[in-house]
């Protein structure tokens, strides 16, 4: 039986999704990934006391998604696919934690979110990998970190200053987001606000991904004008975070001019977002059916002049930053993730593109206004901190161009359209390219036309493992720099 083929945001009847034998699903998924497809989702759903496992693979070149499922009735284990497909590593751990079905032979089967703090004796305790040997020592950091950032625990196994292994234990931020979506499935207004708080640095990204999933399940299409406004907001979010990251990266190497200048430029961008919707992070802008706020001609001019000014000033600041010998000395050849590794562990977003992997959902699986124009995929090859920094700079320039194009092609029309109830017994995959990479929400509706299961994936889910690999054989003092060059989300991972 072959897998059903759909596109991004095309909903499908749950009954139309092929149900394979567990072994067949496993074999075919391995075959698909080995032939160049990407594992997008792998999650369970409780169905009349049984557990159904859904697997979704993407063919990025052909803009296609493939889905199949399998059912576990009494069976409580299956043969792990992680040894063959490393990118399935966290998906299998998550599935095990949520449904207690064990991937036999999984090399790293540990708790993901529950039981992380070791407070509940009914949960599986978390055991760290440990190294033994003369002069080998361990450094533990977190969950509370030195800066104003989210919590997570890092355990370094070092020899002298050199990191041999870094184990990242997350889950401290687990707020039960997916459960909250299902529990409150009768309050669509609340759900949209909840989606904004999945990761507060990716408000537009997650809120847009969720809203588009909802709209696909209602089978409505929103106005072009609303799509343009969402695109402008998403690109502003990308510019703002990338500027903030360049500022923080400068700070991490003691280059304080960069820290100040990029930080001030970021303020201008988030204030532009506030001019549109009243919140610096774009909260409350996106609702299913369109947007809450229109952009007036006067505001369009303001946005245009602000981003063009920021673009010019960024260009000068980047010129100074990337020609400074003391900065390059720290950035270049630090924290390298090569292309083969990036592909193997399923990296996404700018971090993957900095390692030469051409993956960008705006171009691979177009959504919203990106259906109207092509987005050129920007890639670099060195996969080091320099590449992950420089790609942010060139993506800022690209985003400025995209926003300018949208402002020039602004169309007339309403920005909001009332939505109808969700269609029952369907599944939709909503992919989007947030500033950090691929966002993937999958929603399943029940008989009652309400959400019965939502699976949320932040790009951090794929990329955290890359941080572990990037710091191997680096000095421990380079960890903050490597970590910042990825800038991953804790709450987006922990849900």
């Amino acid at each position, binding site marked *: 039986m072959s897998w059903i083929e759909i596109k991004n945001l095309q909903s499908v009847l749950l009954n139309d999704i092929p149900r394979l034998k567990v072994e067949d699903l496993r074999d075919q998924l391995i075959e698909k990934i080995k032939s160049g497809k990407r594992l997008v989702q792998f999650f369970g759903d409780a169905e009349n006391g049984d557990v159904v496992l859904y697997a979704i693979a993407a063919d990025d070149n052909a803009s296609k998604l493939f889905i199949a499922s399998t059912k576990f009735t009494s069976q409580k284990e299956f043969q792990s696919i992680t040894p063959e497909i490393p990118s399935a590593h966290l998906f299998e751990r998550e599935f095990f934690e949520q449904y207690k079905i064990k991937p036999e032979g999984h090399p790293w089967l540990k708790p993901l*979110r529950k039981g*992380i*703090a070791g*407070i509940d004796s009914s949960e599986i305790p978390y055991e760290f990998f440990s190294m033994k040997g003369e002069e080998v020592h361990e450094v533990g950091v977190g*969950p*509370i970190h*030195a*800066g*104003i*950032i*989210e*919590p997570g625990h890092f355990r370094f196994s070092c020899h002298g200053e050199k990191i041999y292994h870094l184990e990242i234990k997350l889950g*401290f*931020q*687990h*707020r*039960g987001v997916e*459960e*909250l979506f299902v*529990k*409150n499935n009768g*309050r669509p*207004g*609340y759900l*949209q*606000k*909840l989606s904004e*708080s*999945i*990761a*507060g*640095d990716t*408000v537009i990204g997650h809120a847009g991904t969720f809203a588009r999933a909802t709209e696909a399940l209602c089978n409505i299409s929103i106005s072009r004008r609303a799509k343009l406004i969402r695109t402008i907001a998403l690109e502003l979010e990308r510019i703002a975070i990338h500027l*903030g990251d360049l*500022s923080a990266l400068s700070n991490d190497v003691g280059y304080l*001019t960069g820290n*100040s*200048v990029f*930080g*001030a430029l970021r*303020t201008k961008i988030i*204030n532009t977002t*506030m*001019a*549109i919707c*009243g*919140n*610096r*992070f774009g*909260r*409350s802008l996106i609702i299913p059916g369109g947007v809450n706020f229109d952009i007036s001609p006067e505001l369009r001019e303001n946005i245009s002049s602000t981003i063009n000014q920021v673009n010019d*000033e960024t260009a*000068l*600041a980047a*010129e*100074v930053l990337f*020609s400074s010998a003391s900065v390059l000395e720290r950035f270049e050849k630090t924290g390298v993730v090569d292309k083969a590794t990036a592909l193997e562990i399923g990296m996404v977003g700018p971090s993957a593109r900095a390692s030469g992997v051409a993956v960008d959902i705006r171009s691979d699986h177009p959504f919203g206004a990106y259906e109207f124009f092509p987005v050129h995929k920007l890639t670099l090859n060195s996969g080091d901190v320099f590449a992950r920094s420089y790609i942010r700079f060139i993506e800022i320039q690209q985003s400025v161009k995209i926003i300018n194009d949208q402002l020039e092609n602004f169309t007339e029309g309403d920005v909001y359209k009332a939505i109808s109830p969700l269609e029952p017994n369907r599944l939709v995959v909503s992919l989007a390219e947030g500033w950090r990479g691929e966002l993937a929400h999958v929603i399943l509706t029940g008989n009652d036309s309400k959400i019965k299961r939502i699976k949320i994936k932040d790009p951090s889910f794929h990329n955290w493992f890359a941080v572990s690999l990037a710091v191997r054989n680096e000095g421990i003092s380079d960890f903050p720099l490597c970590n910042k060059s990825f800038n991953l*989300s*804790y*709450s987006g991972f922990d849900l």
Partner: protein
Amino acid sequence: MLDLIKLRRQHGYQAIPDIKNAKILSTHRGYPIIDESKCVSGCSDCENVCPTNAIKVNPLSIDLGKCIFCGECERACPGGAIKFTNEYKLGSTGRNNLIITSGKLFADYEKEAIELRKEIHKIFGHSLKLRQVSAGGCNGCEMELAACGNVNFDMGRFGIDFVASPRHADGIVITGPITKNMAPALMDAYKSVNSPKIVIAVGACTISGGVFEESDELNRSFLNEIKIDLYIPGCPPHPLTFINAILDFIGKKI
């Protein structure tokens, strides 16, 4: 070298000179003004659309400790009874002050929101070092707190800073709804701060649970044991909201 000089000139002086009277965009959603006389009888649209149950009708009130300032109530109201202003000084030392009732003007709110305690002014009035703990925060509040120290807001010039260790701190700033997994670490951090110490709750999530209030993954028992000295509402609170609340709380003259 020339580029660097050019860059410094272009950057100029960015700090907001008078932080207590800083202007903010008119679009910013801050203090809400409620006029119950405009309510349509029998209507509870605002209550129904509120994602965090911050609004109660009969009599109409908004709890800023729960409010995420999304403005859905204002849009839903057929009579125009709720209007969000751009007033950003929302910090309060009392939880009950945060419940805004009909007719309460911002000037009245501001007057009584922050109670200046002599001992706080005496101990922390010149310098206040804080340790931030994110306990399930989505990174919204965290980014705004980090922004307090950037070149625009430059909180450090008032002697207020975030420090790396609770041992160096005079108090802790909590963000997030306090997850089960962070509850022990939060308590550890609190205990590690030397007395006398203060506790500041930032954002709707910490104050009330916010959009995560109904989650089974929270453990908010910390708040039953430890008294909050200062509440800073918002989702997330603007840096101006945070800085001004602290300045008023410690009675800092600038």
